């Protein structure tokens, strides 16, 4: 019924469109068209990603060659933060903090979900646009504003937030404890507040669109897995981001209004504070109640994108479609009851810890199911190794590698001696810095023709992929071993090990040099992508309507973007999206809009 209602509205849209031309501002800037908003998210995220990557190169130089003067550092940080080309201790922490914040929230939450949910939800469901174009536009502009505020914090006198991306109080609450907890932290909190609002508005819009605006015949069980992933992601966001907002608000009150939510019995820098009765652990519970769902908010869209890409380019249906939906739902549900695994050694009750061990290891089951299903999809396929396909395969590999180390970390007993070491850093970079980022790249390569009506250069795509996977594995693989040797994370200089264990110090320094070199190579590899991306937008060869010979609805729209997506009536869906190489069919793909042939079974 809802679909029908929209149909009528859609007609109206299509008509009114022939009559007036959009102005530049309403087309490119304050656009309410989901395709343009998706592209705006992508552009902003790419920019933020480049900044965050640059920050990481800056601190990696310090880690590999501690205390040595570097032209590169003084070029970007100047005398204030890198006097004589040597990074300041506090700024090291500032760089790490902002790098993490941007990567997790701005690139992988705003960028990944914002770009592809916007782009694909209406297109793959057969809707004219999002449920609310205005809210969608608002969501983007709030994202933009929060990005600007976050970046501006890099340029203030006392520096950006320096308490790590998790901003645990009391460190983040007390400017006396570190300079970044002054104005820098205030800006961080303001930026994130706006970001959360943006994310909430966006997610609500996605949910409503998925539930109400599916075209005729598009039942929930005929939706592509991408949409399932975006949908569950949006639900996770709506349920968990408000908790982060409360955590941030309480922190703001502790900082500005003298409350004691997180503070108790503190003497900092010689000053005895009156705060009594608050608990720093309260903050951690609130933060990780978002924080763990957040990692799946980051990963699920990537898994959704790669499901689609792997199926299309294997020319085979995704194996176990229903099991894939089941795993997405199971992961979504379980991700709300595992947050305590980040707090095993915080002094939380050990019994509570055991409960979290149990729930956390449960989540490995649906994750394993997904991996096996991907592998089986490849089995006996007819693989077309496009750049998108390569990245999607890379995603599966890194999801395995990062998932299995998660199992070690989830064992509270084992976590005791590796918590907060480089082993954790390695784990989450393999799943976020590789899997999720690979998913994003795969999505860009695959849907670029839909976004810009042009093709990206395939060979440059290959170069980009191979540099990236070799570079990134080269960065994050050795980190496991640095962590197993006991190296704490967020240390400015590992040569402190020289004072008690020189061989360990040597090992860490060796590996740190290797890691930094790979990081620089991988970063340079991204230039290939950036070049390909921008060059192709302007000068790439024109795309055809359905370049990958794919089944989903977005490939039935014209190459030229029009408001309302389909020029005539909305398409009607007759089958699931994965009829690739179906026996008896002539072509190796059957679009969702093709009615079942006589005697054909649905699948």
């Amino acid at each position, binding site marked *: 019924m809802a679909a029908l209602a929209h149909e009528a509205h859609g007609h109206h849209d299509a008509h009114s469109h022939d009559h007036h031309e959009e102005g530049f501002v309403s087309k490119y800037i304050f656009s309410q068209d989901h395709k343009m908003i998706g592209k705006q998210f992508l552009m902003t995220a790419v920019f933020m990603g480049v900044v965050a990557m640059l920050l990481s190169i800056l601190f990696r130089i310090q880690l590999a060659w501690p205390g040595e003067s570097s032209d590169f550092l003084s070029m970007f940080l100047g005398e204030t933060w890198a006097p004589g080309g040597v990074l300041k201790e506090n700024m090291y922490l500032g760089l790490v903090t902002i790098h993490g914040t941007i990567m997790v929230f701005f690139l992988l939450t705003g960028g990944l979900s914002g770009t592809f949910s916007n782009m694909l939800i209406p297109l793959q469901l057969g809707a004219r646009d999002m449920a609310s174009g205005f809210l969608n536009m608002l969501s983007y502009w709030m994202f933009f504003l929060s990005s600007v505020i976050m970046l501006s914090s890099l340029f203030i006198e006392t520096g950006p937030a320096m308490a790590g991306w998790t901003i645990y109080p*009391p460190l983040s609450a007390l400017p006396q404890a570190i300079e970044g907890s002054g104005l820098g932290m205030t800006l961080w909190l303001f930026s994130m507040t706006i970001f959360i609002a943006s994310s909430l508005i966006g997610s609500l819009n996605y949910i409503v669109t998925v539930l109400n605006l599916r075209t005729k015949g598009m039942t929930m069980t005929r939706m592509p897995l991408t949409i399932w992933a975006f949908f569950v992601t949006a639900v996770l966001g709506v349920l968990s981001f408000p908790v982060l907002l409360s955590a941030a608000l309480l922190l703001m009150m502790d900082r500005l209004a003298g409350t004691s939510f997180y503070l108790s019995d503190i*003497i900092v820098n010689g000053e005895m504070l009156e705060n009594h009765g608050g608990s720093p652990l309260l903050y951690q519970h609130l933060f990780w109640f978002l924080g763990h769902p957040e990692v799946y908010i980051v990963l699920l869209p990537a898994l959704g994108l790669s499901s689609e890409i792997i199926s299309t380019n294997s020319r085979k249906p995704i194996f176990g479609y229903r099991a894939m939906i089941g795993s997405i739902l199971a992961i979504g549900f379980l991700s709300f009851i595992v947050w305590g695994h980040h707090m095993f050694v915080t002094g939380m009750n050990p019994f509570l810890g055991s409960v979290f061990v149990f729930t956390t290891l449960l989540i490995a089951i649906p994750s394993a*199911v997904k991996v096996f299903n991907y592998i089986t999809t490849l089995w006996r396929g007819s693989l077309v190794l496009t750049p998108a396909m390569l990245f999607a395969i890379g995603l599966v590999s890194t999801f395995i590698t990062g998932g299995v180390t998660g199992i070690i970390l989830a064992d509270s007993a084992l976590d005791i001696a590796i918590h907060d070491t480089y082993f954790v850093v390695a784990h989450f970079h393999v799943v976020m810095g590789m899997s999720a980022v690979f998913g994003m790249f795969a999505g860009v390569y695959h849907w670029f023709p839909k976004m810009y009506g042009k093709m990206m250069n395939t060979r440059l795509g290959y170069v980009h992929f191979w540099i990236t996977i070799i570079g990134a594995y080269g960065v994050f*693989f050795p980190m496991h071993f640095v962590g197993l040797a006991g190296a704490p994370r967020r240390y400015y200089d590992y040569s402190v090990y020289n004072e008690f264990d020189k*061989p360990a110090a040597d090992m860490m320094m060796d590996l740190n040099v290797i890691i930094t070199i790979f990081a620089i190579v991988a970063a340079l590899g991204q230039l290939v992508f950036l070049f390909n991306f921008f060059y192709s937008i302007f000068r790439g060869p024109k795309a055809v309507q359905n370049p990958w010979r794919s089944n989903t609805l977005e490939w039935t729209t014209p190459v030229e973007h029009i408001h309302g997506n389909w020029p005539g009536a909305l398409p009607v869906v007759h089958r699931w999206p*994965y009829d690739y*190489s179906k026996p008896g069919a002539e072509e190796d793909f059957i679009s969702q809009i093709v009615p079942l042939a006589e005697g054909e079974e649905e699948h």
Partner: protein
Amino acid sequence: MSFKLVTLVVIVLGAVAIAQLVRLYEHSSKLRNRREEDIPNRDNKLNANMMLTFMILLFGGFIWLMSTYGFTGRGEAASEHGKTYDWLLDVNFLLIVIVFFITNFLLFFFSFKYVRKPGVKAYFYPHNNKLELIWTVVPAIVLAFIIILGLKTWNNITSDANKEAIRVELFSEQFKWTARYAGNDNKLGYFDYKLTTDKNQLALLTTATLDSAIRIMEVGSHDGTILGIKLLEEKLNNPKNIFIPKDRVKMEADLDRKTRLLRLLYQMKYRHNSNVDARAYDDVIEADTLHLMKNQDYEFNFRAKDVIHSAYFPHFRAQINAVPGLTTRFKFKPTISTSEMKQKMNNPDFNFVLMCNKICGGAHYKMKMIVVVDSPSSYKKWFKTKKTFKDEFLAVSAPAPAAEATADTLVVAVN
């Protein structure tokens, strides 16, 4: 400057060069009538081969890293539970490494083997319930095994320490550790952060520390750097003094804060029972090194003065956070002495260490304490040389005859 220029020139030239290459490539594609989305078999095959090569590289890299760096690092576990810990880690590692190899192999091998070949159609295979059941149940069983083993160890490690365990407090602040041993009664003295003064850095609670904290709050430090309530009031009330408004607001706030804290101190004083003084008086404070006895059980109590720190003993496989306003505990029993470990590590300069493992400020990375594990006899010899808290605290306070004068000799940490 020149560096910036060179970098810029290189970037610009690089971009131009790539652009030219791409143009060339596009021209030749156009000539051959090849579209970007048509992946030629040659490219497909090349990438398939790369997949296999990459897999070999990945596995080779892993084996190389494992053999070169996998067994260095922290060395043998030097505590009782640490041995179980290492065993458990090995079991889990073995499992995940097997999974890592098998699944990655299948993934890359299939990507290589099933690359598109002319005339071969993909096999339509949408699902198979039996297969899916198998790979839900098998991981579930393996995980159950991991959970049971893990929780058994976890419960052992986190259970309460026995009575014989020596109580030691580790006090953390930006950026150092201080140890406090629970003297002869094996009971740590009580504390309250408001009692912190220069001579009572750990804020131990006794009648004398209470009195001196109150006195300092009232009359300030003797060198005048820290103002007591009396002086603050005098200054603020003296019409001859003219302050910048900002300073005045600050001083008033300071006065208010101190007045409130003083009230709390008096409350504490009226409730104080001097019987508990003894608990604190026999404690021994040591800021430099943590001395432990081999084969002795310990219960460590952790406190933080300013922000969260984390007490990380990599060689003993122990870690717990130190949280302001909360006392956390961890117990372990060192089983290898420092000199034995030096031999095992084949490194005469080796030492055990306690590091901070929770971001706590700029010098976080320097926050550590050397840990020395000795035989009981040499430990006891060392312990005898240490003064108790009573001796230390009263030694500074004693020479002063009158109460007023005592306060003057105390230099305060608190302003």
